[in-house]
């Protein structure tokens, strides 16, 4: 198996999100200039973690 695929599988995990909420995300992605819904969701998570004082850079 190529190394890049193995790395991706190890670093990412699937998360189930209601379709109706993702439709809202899609609208926001276009409106606020995000590249993708994943980027938007990642930003949303980082912001809430930061709000609770629990965010650490993913590279750490």
């Amino acid at each position, binding site marked *: 198996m190529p190394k890049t695929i193995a790395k991706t599988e190890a670093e990412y995990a699937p998360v189930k999100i209601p379709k109706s909420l993702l439709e809202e*995300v899609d609208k926001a992605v276009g409106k606020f200039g995000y590249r993708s819904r994943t980027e938007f969701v990642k930003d949303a998570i980082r912001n809430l973690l930061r709000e*609770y004082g629990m965010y650490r850079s993913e590279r750490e």
Partner: protein
Amino acid sequence: MEIHLLLEESLKKQLLNFIEDLEEPFDIEFLMKSCLQPVSEIKIHDVLCELIEEGKIIRISGNQYLSTRVLMKRWLRQKIRSSNDDIAFEVLELPRSLIRQISRLIREKPELGYINVSEFIRDAIRRWISNLDR
């Protein structure tokens, strides 16, 4: 599991404990066979009648019974399954490092009330949308 009859007066309590672990309907004959010491059919029948009156078991057919607790568990499982069926989901791939941070937050700050990672993510999305809209 077997019923150990030490004292006659504890028969009802022991039977109820035993019955509440039975996922499938049972009858008097089955309960008689499950007792280590001989117990009469009439005695078991009387106890079952008392448990029915107390709402702890129900008679589901002529000689078949089921505990109310098991019945409630089944109903809840069915309810959860059907409510999940009503909601369509999609899968997003997210960095494990972020998911680990969410899990840590849920574990370390239970007072926030998040039950699982998905719930936190849904909340984060809703809050972020409303933040950006402001």
